[in-house]
């Protein structure tokens, strides 16, 4: 079920756009004069065709009776500039560059959790851009990540929307030798938020819960967990890079049971993409969805959702192996608790080491 446009159709489209453009040029005199020299039907009934400038002025606005000198100069200047602009080319290059995956660009098959390979391939351009240009992600420690069948990344989370999840997945895919793309587990409210939910699922995100994580790991997928959960993503800006409490440590027992390698990950920069000033509880209680206030968010409306371009560093820590741990210990709450705190400490240490290394938040 490929939706590729066949080349001949594309050629036909291009030809029709070109002919339309030629007609436009003939009628309004923008661009080079028509090759055939056909008189446009709507052309003013004069002896000789009107000059370019006159027609252009007519198109822009009704010419004032007596234009001052500077206005005439501006008009001439503008006309000359406009002549050089190839609308079709701009449009095509814009389309090519933007290429937002739309609903037309989905494949007829998705995996168990809704990952759509075609959609992801189209979104990759955007993810690359966010990764390289917007956040200029700097990855370190990736060589320590083993090429094991089951790897569970555990990371700090911040920044309301799961940008960090997408970027870690992208960082692993691009820099690790196996080029595997881990599946991020995203918190409940994001996973059921209208619009974001279906897109995130197509990009590979899965709602965070023990059953889902187990199913993914059991199928030898790599998984990214954010044990802080909502508490981490929605913490106020003044608590940035302070790890919140980890949940019950389900990720530890999972890793022990399924023999997964645990890799602590520290993400620097995600706290600054949506700095939370405060998050009114009452709103969350009223509409069931947290609505944090950031310097940009309700203020600038939809524009406020655009993440700020901080500079990111993603650091992968020493992997923790559970191969010599008896699987029964997965049910031992004391052991699980201890290991959970150990992982938490490891991530906090990575954060504390990395933070002084960045010279500036945005540059």
């Amino acid at each position: 079920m490929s939706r590729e446009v066949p080349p001949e159709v594309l050629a036909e489209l291009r030809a029709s756009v070109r002919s339309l453009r030629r007609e436009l040029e003939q009628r309004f005199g923008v661009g080079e004069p028509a090759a055939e020299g056909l008189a446009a039907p709507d052309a003013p009934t004069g002896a000789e065709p009107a000059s370019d400038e006159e027609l252009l002025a007519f198109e822009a606005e009704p010419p004032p009776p007596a234009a001052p000198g500077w206005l005439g100069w501006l008009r001439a200047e503008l006309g000359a500039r406009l002549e050089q602009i190839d609308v079709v080319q701009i449009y095509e290059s814009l389309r090519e560059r933007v290429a937002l995956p739309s609903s037309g660009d989905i494949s007829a098959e998705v995996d168990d959790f809704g990952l759509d390979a075609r959609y992801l391939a189209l979104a990759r351009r955007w993810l690359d851009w966010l990764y390289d240009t917007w956040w200029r992600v700097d990855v370190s420690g990736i060589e320590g990540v083993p090429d094991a069948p089951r790897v569970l990344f555990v990371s700090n989370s911040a920044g309301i929307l799961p940008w960090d999840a997408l970027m870690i997945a992208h960082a692993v895919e691009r820099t690790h030798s196996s080029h595997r793309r881990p599946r991020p587990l995203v918190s409940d409210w994001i996973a059921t938020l209208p619009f974001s939910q279906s897109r995130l699922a197509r990009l590979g995100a899965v709602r965070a819960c023990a059953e889902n994580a187990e199913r993914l790991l059991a199928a030898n997928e790599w998984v990214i967990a954010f044990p802080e959960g909502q508490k981490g993503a929605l913490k106020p800006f003044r608590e940035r890079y302070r790890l919140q409490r980890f949940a019950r440590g389900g990720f530890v027992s999972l890793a022990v049971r399924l023999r997964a390698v645990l890799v602590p990950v520290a993400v620097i920069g995600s706290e600054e993409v949506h700095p939370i000033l405060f998050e009114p509880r009452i709103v969350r209680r009223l509409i069931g969805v947290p609505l944090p206030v950031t310097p940009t968010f309700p203020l600038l409306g939809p524009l406020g959702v655009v993440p700020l371009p901080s500079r990111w560093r993603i650091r992968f820590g020493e992997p923790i192996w559970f191969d010599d741990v008896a699987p029964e210990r997965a049910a031992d709450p004391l052991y699980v608790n201890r290991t959970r705190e150990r992982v938490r400490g490891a991530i906090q240490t990575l954060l504390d080491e990395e933070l002084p290394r960045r010279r500036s938040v945005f540059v």
Partner: protein
Amino acid sequence: MAARREPELGRRGLATVAITGVGTFTGARTAERLLEGDSPPRIVALDLRLPRRLEGRVRFHRVDLTEPTADSWVAEILEKEGCEAVLHAAFFTDPHPDVELSHELEVVGALHVMNAAAAAGVRKLVVTSSAQVYGPHPDNPGYLSEDHELRPHPHAHAARDRAELERLLRLFAQRHRDMVVTALRPSWIMGPSYESAVTRRFESGRVLTLLGYDPLLQFLHEDDWLDAIETVLERDAPGPWNLAGDGVLPLSTLLRLGDKRSVPLPHPLLYGAARLDSLARTGDLPEAFWDHLRFGWLVDTRRAREQLGFEPLYTTQEAWMSFVVARKLRGYR
């Protein structure tokens, strides 16, 4: 597509099978299938009426399961006919507008059949439930296993009744350990001839959807559904079984595959309209239906695959396409 599996029932020694609700799609089709086998079992059909195409081929008894004394009638019939297995399919295919009557048939009627089967010494009881007993919830795991808690949608009375019945059935199975008690939980059934409230929602060329939600859906093809019933009648398979075609697809993809247009509406509006529209006609608030298009309720079919060897012939996509194509041929958009 793989060749049709040979039905092996009858060969394994089931001589007499009773089917309640033989007027329903499931009851009638299962009866026909069993009769097509090499050594067909004797079929005892119980319902209010017999489909014409089964006339003369089954032993029909007119029974109203909503009667207060239906259990002793049914027990008498089962004993007299010497039934070894009972397939209980006497459920409304659509959520019935009369909530009381629906409860009377789907829970109390089923209870009558259960008790009658135990009294008549029937060895096996198969009940057709539904995957909707799990209910659509934002905090459902991606795939629901049979052990998951049953949390039907509070406004879907049919699913609620079915869940209550399953609870009764579990207690019943604990009390009657000599009996094989099976509950089948199919996800939405799709196919050329299956008709239900769900298929009617998807028949039109324009399908209302919830703005911003694109749930993953699973379908079970009607042939696979009948195959599953045959399998559990033929083999001893106690407990609940999730049934669904392989693979999942987002609703938007399904609609695009079926060349249908989606008409997305914001959900508060849709719920409000649904409530107004339906209070007049059915007792089932269709916001329950919309929630099934909003939150996930996918079932994990690994148990049926591994322990029962049940391999659906049709994937979710194929079940959907066979539904779409059949309706198109019949002149629906």
